[in-house]
């Protein structure tokens, strides 16, 4: 919402300057976005006369001008290159030291090819006023030499732009803003004399019918019409054109300008029909019929549907109610008889129509926020008076279709409520004064009884009344009171699951992985490669075609990110994300994941040893570290080789606790790398944090008692030859199970295939730690355990000791 200071002063009797007004507007909740004070910005520029202009002695394209600044001093020399400069011309002069906005430079006295140039004669572009740089500003001969240019040119009216919140429909007009400022003590609201009733001199000849089915009865509760005959439609007067131009609207003709002016002045959009274009001598306000279209005033043609409120004549639609008029019946310079419409339209229907048809207009902006239901006739009279003043003619009586809606609502306000809700102590008498200044009807008492004014449809109860009082008092008056503590000591803010999630994030980062945050949505075709995408997770209005489904896995985003980093010259990415993936639209279908990828080299080329590319065991270690930080019993997990098909089938695994899948890890499937435009080697893991069992509620914080053996552990090495397909984990489990009391640890320290073990066989070398608890083991006892281990391995996997 834009307006100028002088426009504001049409409604507000004030001597406050623009700075004070801007501060007050922001304090009232009418946030000032910008104040453009061109008089201030352009203060150094003065009107000057070129007494003489002659060719520069040393340059073909330059002229030396002797310039009179109107101060009674002798003319000064200015070198000028403009093609239009000439003797006797009146233009705009900037002295040395002036900042030139159009050129972003500050002027200095300088010598141009041997001639001193004092300042500059300026073009409109150099002043930042327009794009015109064809030559210097050419003023009328009677322009007062020596005067400040901006003030003389009428640019001295500061332009104020405020950001309007959607509740303040009343401040979509300058008058509403003036009313708020008056309540805040910045002046007095002037009466609006031009909105006094205008008596018609003849009956309205164009009747209006409201024709709505019961379910759309509220679409247009009130429609006023009036014919003004015998008008002469030409340009509107300069004062109105200046008002409109200043806020960026283009003057069109007096009749159209009046409607635009009222829209901005009192937030009362109207429509003017050329009455001679109304066919059948009557108007009907109704819902559009399927197949109807309208060419609107903006030149576009809209296909209408039966949810749109239209104004139609005998032959078809002439206007979209509350949004935009039609081109055919619009007013032109030739209009002699004008039919003025002032109506109320349903806010929701107007908003939905505007959104569906994609029409933005100043009328729609106001109608969808809600117009003052008690300012329909007054708006019509205001417009009528302006039209009669500007265009002459004769006004008919007002035709009324429908009834004004009942807008009166009564609320109570406890006198202490501003203090108990708002935290500010405002005396009751001040509360009453503020509300009355804002137009509320107040009956004093405990509680007070308050009726909001017709233009405040946004006020719906005591809390709103508290806000009205507070915003006029100013939010600066609210004291800052610390929130009382609920307990002497700070209690934990995180529950067990949140705490574990936080631990996982830091544990994985500590393993050298960089945490990324990537979009929750991704491209449907890519998502499909990572399991089925639920139909309920396809966006109806994606912002881009490659961000159209909720991600079923975080992996594709990370794989692509690793690819992008490699393209930039950083191939050894280690990226993880701790966040959601989406399997169904239900809350339970959102899974919290710790997902990561590693690409390129795990061990860099280095003088101390050989480089090593990432492999499946890096991803497995990451997954296990994440699970351990999440509190999963990592010692009890089983590894199975059934990871889904976005993993390398022979180099991947699933970590399970019983039947529950806790994680997957492995090499990225080469097809997936191709699909996502990334290069291997790359490994990946996905940890399902929600699947990790919740920690047991233990009694107290104590850990189990640590029993340390005084006896030295004994380490014995074994090498078993097994079938090459035998999984090492089965051998290790067999060894552990051979003597659960004595076998404390089993480590695999060599895996060998080749000469000496036979075709299709593998030698596994294990280091077994025996921990005696009662007495030192004898050689015989150690041998006995060794035999149990050999027997157990033979039984479990058919392995034999390597000879």
């Amino acid at each position: 919402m834009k307006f100028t200071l002088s426009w504001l002063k049409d409604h507000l009797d004030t001597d406050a300057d623009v700075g004070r007004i801007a501060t007050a507007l922001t304090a009232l909740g009418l946030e000032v976005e910008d104040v453009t004070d061109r008089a201030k910005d352009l203060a150094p520029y003065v009107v000057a006369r070129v007494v003489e202009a002659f060719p520069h002695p040393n340059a073909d394209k330059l002229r030396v001008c002797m310039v009179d600044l109107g101060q009674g001093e002798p003319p000064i020399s200015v070198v000028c290159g403009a093609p239009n400069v000439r003797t006797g011309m009146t233009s705009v002069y900037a002295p040395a030291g002036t900042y030139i906005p159009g050129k972003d430079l500050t002027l200095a006295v300088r010598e141009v090819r041997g001639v001193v140039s004092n300042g500059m004669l300026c073009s409109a572009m150099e002043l930042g006023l327009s794009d015109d740089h064809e030559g210097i500003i050419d003023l009328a001969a009677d322009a007062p030499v020596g005067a400040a240019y901006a003030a003389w040119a009428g640019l001295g009216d500061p332009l104020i732009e405020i950001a309007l919140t959607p509740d303040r429909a009343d401040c979509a007009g300058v008058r509403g803003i003036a009313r708020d400022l008056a309540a805040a003590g910045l002046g007095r609201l002037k009466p609006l004399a031009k909105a006094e009733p205008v008596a018609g001199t003849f009956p309205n000849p164009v009747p209006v019918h409201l024709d709505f089915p019961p379910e759309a009865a509220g679409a247009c509760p009130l429609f006023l019409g009036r014919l003004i005959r015998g008008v002469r439609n030409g340009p509107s007067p300069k004062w109105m054109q200046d008002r409109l131009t200043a806020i960026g609207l283009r003057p069109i003709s007096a009749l159209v300008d009046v409607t635009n002016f009222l829209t901005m002045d009192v937030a009362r959009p109207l429509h003017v029909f050329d009455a001679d274009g109304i066919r059948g001598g009557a108007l009907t306000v109704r819902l559009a019929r399927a197949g109807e279209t309208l060419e609107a005033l903006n030149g576009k043609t809209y296909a209408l549907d039966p949810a749109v409120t239209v104004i139609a004549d005998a032959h078809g639609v002439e206007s979209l109610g509350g949004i935009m008029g039609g081109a055919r019946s619009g007013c032109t310079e030739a209009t002699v008889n004008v039919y003025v419409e002032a109506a109320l339209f349903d806010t929701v229907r107007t908003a939905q129509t505007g959104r569906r048809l994609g029409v933005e207009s100043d009328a729609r902006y106001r109608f969808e926020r809600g117009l003052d239901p008690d300012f329909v006739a007054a708006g019509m009279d205001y417009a009528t008076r302006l039209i009669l003043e500007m265009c002459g003619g004769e006004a008919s009586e007002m035709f009324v279709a429908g009834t004004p809606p009942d807008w009166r609502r009564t609320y109570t306000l406890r006198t202490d409520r501003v203090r108990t809700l708002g935290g500010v102590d405002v005396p009751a008498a001040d509360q009453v004064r503020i509300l009355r200044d804002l137009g509320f009807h107040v009956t004093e008492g405990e509680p007070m009884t308050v009726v909001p004014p017709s233009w405040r449809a946004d006020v719906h109860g005591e809390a709103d009344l508290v806000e009205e009082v507070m915003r006029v008092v100013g939010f600066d008056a609210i004291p800052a009171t610390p929130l009382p503590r609920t307990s002497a000591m700070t209690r934990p803010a995180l529950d067990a699951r949140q705490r574990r999630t936080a631990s996982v994030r830091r544990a994985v980062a500590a393993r050298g992985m960089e945490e990324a945050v990537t979009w929750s949505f991704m491209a449907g075709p890519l998502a499909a490669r990572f399991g089925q995408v639920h139909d309920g997770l396809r966006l109806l209005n994606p912002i881009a075609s490659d961000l159209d489904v909720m991600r079923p896995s975080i992996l594709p985003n990370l794989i692509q990110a690793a690819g992008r980093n490699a393209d930039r010259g950083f191939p050894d990415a280690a990226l993880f994300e701790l966040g959601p993936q989406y399997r169904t639209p239900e809350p339970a279908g959102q899974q919290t994941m710790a997902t990561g990828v590693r690409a390129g080299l795990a061990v860099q080329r280095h003088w101390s040893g050989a480089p090593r590319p990432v492999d499946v065991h890096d991803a497995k270690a990451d997954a296990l570290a994440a699970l351990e930080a999440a509190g999963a019993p990592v010692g009890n997990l089983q590894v199975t080789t059934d990871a889904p098909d976005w993993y390398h089938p022979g180099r991947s695994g699933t970590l399970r606790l019983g039947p529950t899948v806790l994680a997957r890890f492995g090499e990225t499937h080469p097809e997936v790398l191709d699909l996502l435009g990334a290069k291997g080697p790359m490994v990946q893991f996905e940890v399902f944090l929600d699947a990790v069992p919740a920690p047991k509620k233990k009694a107290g914080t104590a850990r189990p008692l640590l029993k340390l053996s005084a006896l030295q552990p004994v380490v014995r090495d074994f090498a078993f030859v097994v079938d090459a397909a035998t999984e090492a984990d089965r051998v290790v489990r067999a060894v552990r199970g051979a003597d659960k009391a004595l076998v404390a640890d089993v480590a695999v320290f060599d895996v060998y295939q080749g000469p000496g073990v036979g075709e299709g066989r593998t030698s596994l070398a294990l280091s077994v730690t025996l921990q005696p608890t009662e007495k030192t083991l004898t050689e015989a006892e150690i041998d006995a355990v060794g035999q149990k281990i050999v027997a157990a391995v033979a039984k479990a996997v058919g392995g034999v000791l390597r000879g």
Partner: protein
Amino acid sequence: MDDLKAELLAAVAAATDLAALDEARIAALGKKGRLTDAMKALGALSPDERRARGQALNEVKDAVTTAVEARRATLARAALAARLEAERVDVTLPTRAERAGHLHPISQTVDEIVAIFADMGFALAEGPDVEDDFHNFTALNFPPGHPARDMHDTFYLPDRADGSRMLLRTHTSPVQVRSMLSLKPPIRVICPGRTFRSDYDMTHTPMFHQVEGLVIDETTTMAHLKGCLVEFCRTFFDVDDLPLRFRPSFFPFTEPSAEVDIGCSRKGGELKLGNHGDWLEILGCGMVHPNVLSACGIDPQKYQGFAFGMGIERIAMLKYGIPDLRTFFEADLRWLRHYGFLPLDMPSLARGLVG
């Protein structure tokens, strides 16, 4: 005798390595050594001569033995020094690579926010990203068709079988709704999370993070809201005298509503937070609207409270001088390493919140 002694000691002193020293020792003290031979010859002497000569020989023997041990220690030191010198390596070579990972600034910022609000008695609450119309709009007092819904640029998903309209939450306020529906007052929760709006330009991304706070009890006023946010902003930004300005605003779910600015300076194109006369908007807040309390099963006649919300990326950018919002989601390793945080850098009020 003195000649013998001098000769033997000279031989010890002349030994340049342990082997030569051993030879000298054997030549003097071995079974066939000079001194041993001389000792053997004592038997042929008279008792007096024997005593005198024996004493002299013993003195020589002691002197040689001492000299041998001293020489042995010297040579051992020299041998060790030579070995260590031979073991010299180039310590200027680079170490084996140990790559440190980092936390994303969003995670660190959330942890900082939680640390501060935990101290004011708030608990962390979370909720789903895919929401229904009730939790995201209706319960929050957005009337159907209200222009405020337009301001949210909502992403929609297909309707559920029961007809409920599904969407991506446009703010974390649905978590407040879920908290009010599941908890009994007094309530203090802080709700960080992903949020989604269909907007993509220099200063907007279709996904971003918000943190909202909610306090519900019988006595909390807007003065407490101001006190709470003043404490938060000063602690978070680590500026003790950071001024806050409350301006009336509009949100459907709060009444009265305010936007909050913090003090700053933009002199010379550089943004600096503090009491410098200029203002920067950072958050929205207000007293929870009675309609919201009713929709969430809380009696608005008895209970009241405040809510606030702010963009996490925005305050992280302000605090850590990160210039471009869009870079948060690009997973560029150089950016993550530069703006990220070490995993051991865990925010707490005890250690301070500034890295």
